[in-house]
């Protein structure tokens, strides 16, 4: 069963590549923000799986909760910051 958990963890890491592409190549800033949010929500499950692999789930649950909260606050703060930025519409056609 531990072997199966490590296989699921590797699959999650491979799934993270697609939003990472959106982070690096996204046409606008908000696209990068969406990619970061998607990667963060996968990382929460990955932390729980790492806790099972090490046999210390009680510790890693707290770390996962803190990571989810940090991800939420970061996305809120960044989107509040990009409110005032004009010219995102032209930037999306610059490719």
């Amino acid at each position, binding site marked *: 069963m531990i072997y*199966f958990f490590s296989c699921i963890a590797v699959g999650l890491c491979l799934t993270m590549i697609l939003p990472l592409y959106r982070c690096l190549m996204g046409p606008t800033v908000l696209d990068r923000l969406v990619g970061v949010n998607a990667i963060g929500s996968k990382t929460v499950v990955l932390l729980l799986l790492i806790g099972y692999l090490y046999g210390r789930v009680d510790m890693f649950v707290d770390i996962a909760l803190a990571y989810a*909260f940090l991800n939420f606050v970061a996305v809120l703060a960044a989107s509040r910051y990009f409110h005032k930025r004009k010219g995102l*519409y032209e930037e999306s056609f610059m490719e």
Partner: protein
Amino acid sequence: MMHIIINILSVFCLLTGLIFFIGGAVGIMRMPDFYSRLHPAGKLDTLGIFTMVAGLVIYNFHHLSLGVVLLSIKMFLIVFFVFLASPTATHSIVDAGMRAGLRPWTKKKEKE
């Protein structure tokens, strides 16, 4: 016998959650617009977290004690928080895009 049933349920939930996550990632890659990219990002990631954490909680039930039950409740508190936080974050990103003047994608007209 009980162990086999618990293992099968846990494996089924984990694989279903992984399929949801892969669907969300492909949707983020292939959607044409920023606003339509938010649709798989907001929905499929939330459901993927719920299904995968449910699979891990089912695996917890191998040896039942008070600490394990408290651990399961804590893991479902993460899911509850994500269910509250993920739509809020998505709404906030959409609001930032609308106020910054980002127009939604429309089908391009054919050239004359």
